[in-house]
């Protein structure tokens, strides 16, 4: 349903008095992925790996440097002026900070109704009915509609954003760290809400997060991103059971296991070093400065993403 091919997004860096371009921040450097209808595609990576930028490119709110995106069979691209209504009807987003994504001077009911109004052709009656249905859908009380965003708690605010995203019955929602800023107890509620919405309305999600356990819970396919590139993609079970890329292995080893005895016993892989610059890209594999298995070929040749095992792609020379 959604296909991304070789997406690249570079941000130019200017220096000096005349703002000459001296380099690029290679936020996204050749990413390809496919999201199927009704599935959740999890995207994990550390801060600064480019996952949010990738999300914004897919949403077509920023122009890409190169690469193409296909949505429901059609090629979509960024335009400063017109956003096709069909795109807004099918593709929506929820963000990490729900409060910032809402107009602080709009009432909740107007916030949720806005996408519907933009699509047009609905009477006030129809909109009210749809609003009530949405309140029920996300678990908001009707009275909340009259309030302003700052009067709501974090969890309630995110519910409003979800209601707004669902208002036009989209088929695809980009979820950029939707629960990272919420209390742990609320997180579970929101995740469950997202899951039930997916089940009942067959929505696909691109679920971006740095929290591996959440991604594990909700995703069908998971991709691991590092420094602008995808280093591993595979169906969830397979990835968590059998991580192939050294980076993935290290990440997974950091997830605490609730059983203290087991926790003590297992191997912890610590990643040394700092995240290298996304500007001056070193030759070879991006991860090699921090990789515990690095060999000489890793410093020379950049590993392509290839299918190492059935439906399990890895970008590593040593696999």
């Amino acid at each position, binding site marked *: 349903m959604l296909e991304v091919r070789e997406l690249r997004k570079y941000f130019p860096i200017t220096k000096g008095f005349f703002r000459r371009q001296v380099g690029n921040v290679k936020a996204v450097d050749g990413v390809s992925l496919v999201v199927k209808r009704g599935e959740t595609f999890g995207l994990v990576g550390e801060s600064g790996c480019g996952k949010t930028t990738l999300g914004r490119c897919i949403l077509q709110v920023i122009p890409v440097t190169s690469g193409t995106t296909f949505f429901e069979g059609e090629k979509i691209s960024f335009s400063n002026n017109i956003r096709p209504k069909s795109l807004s009807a099918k593709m929506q987003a929820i963000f990490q*900070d729900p409060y910032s994504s809402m*107009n602080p*001077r709009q009432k909740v009911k107007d916030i949720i109704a806005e996408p519907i109004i933009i699509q047009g052709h609905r009477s006030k009656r129809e909109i009210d009915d749809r609003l009530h249905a949405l309140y029920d859908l996300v678990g908001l009380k009707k009275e909340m509609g009259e309030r302003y965003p*700052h009067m709501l708690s974090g969890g309630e605010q995110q519910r409003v954003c979800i209601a*707004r995203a669902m208002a036009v019955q989209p088929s695809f929602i980009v979820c950029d760290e939707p629960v990272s800023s919420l209390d742990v107890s609320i997180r579970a509620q929101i995740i469950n809400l997202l899951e039930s919405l997916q089940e009942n309305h067959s929505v696909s999600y691109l679920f971006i997060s740095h929290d591996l356990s959440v991604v594990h819970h909700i995703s069908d396919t998971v991709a691991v991103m590092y420094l602008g590139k995808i280093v591993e993609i595979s169906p969830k079970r397979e990835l968590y059971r059998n991580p192939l890329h050294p980076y993935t292995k290290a990440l997974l080893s950091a997830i605490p296991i609730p059983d203290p005895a087991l926790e003590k016993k297992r191997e912890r892989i610590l990643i040394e070093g700092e995240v290298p610059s996304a500007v001056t890209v070193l030759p070879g594999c991006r991860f090699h400065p921090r990789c515990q298995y690095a060999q000489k070929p890793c410093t020379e040749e950049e590993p392509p993403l290839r299918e190492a095992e059935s439906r399990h792609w890895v970008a590593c020379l040593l696999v």
Partner: protein
Amino acid sequence: MTNLETEQESKNRLRLREVWAFSLREPLGVLGALLLLALVIMAIGAPVWTDKDPVTTSISQAFKPPLSQFWFGTDFLGRDIWSRFVYGSRISLIVAMSGVALASVAGGLLGIFSGLVGGKTDSYIQRFMDSLLAMPAIVLAIIIMAVLGTSLVNVIIAIAIVSFPRVNRITRSTAVSLRESLFIESAVIAGASKWRITIRHIAMNCVAPWLVYCSALLGTAFIAEASLSFLGMGVPPPTPSWGRDLSDNLTRFEFAPWPCIFPGLGISMAVFSANFLGDALRNILDPRLKRI
């Protein structure tokens, strides 16, 4: 569910309650608003409040003290100060309010436009505004009056021209900071057209700082009109103007201090009320965003 009152009635009650809450919380603001109202009433109903002509001179009556036949006394030309006070309020109010109204609308709209459009257009407009802002306001006003000549309309124009870059700066910086915010991005994703975003999202959020600034601007405008008149470059005689009355009588206050005191009081009252109102508005509108 039975509603004992209609939706409209409950909305009205809510608004009334908001006004009451506002009054309790910001007594100074209410004071300012009332003072301003008093000035307006005085200005509009000028002939009601005084039956004496502010313009006729009568040297024999010069420098009569207040609380006599003349409530505020007379000035150096024998003109009744109370009448000049009342009629002078008209000038101050008309000039200040018109000037600020012009400047706030023009500056506000231009600010939003300039802030949103960005790029070279924005740059050029802002450079021009910077040039206007680089000069002290009074100097610019003097230049404008020197070019246009003294008249009521020209004073309004001068005040408007001097104030408008300042309003522009405020709305533009709000617009620019809003432009990058997440809720604008959400609106784009929802498919909002540029118009819709500009009006419903950006402008709506620009109103608060703009309103606060413009009410403070009103205070400055009062002083500006008075200053220009004081320098002889404001409203031409014989129209009563608080500023000019002050300057006319300044050199003569060895004879009598009161012709100076009352116009000054008038100006101060006007400025006070504008400032109080502005402060109160700021307290009301700003923390709303931060209240959780």
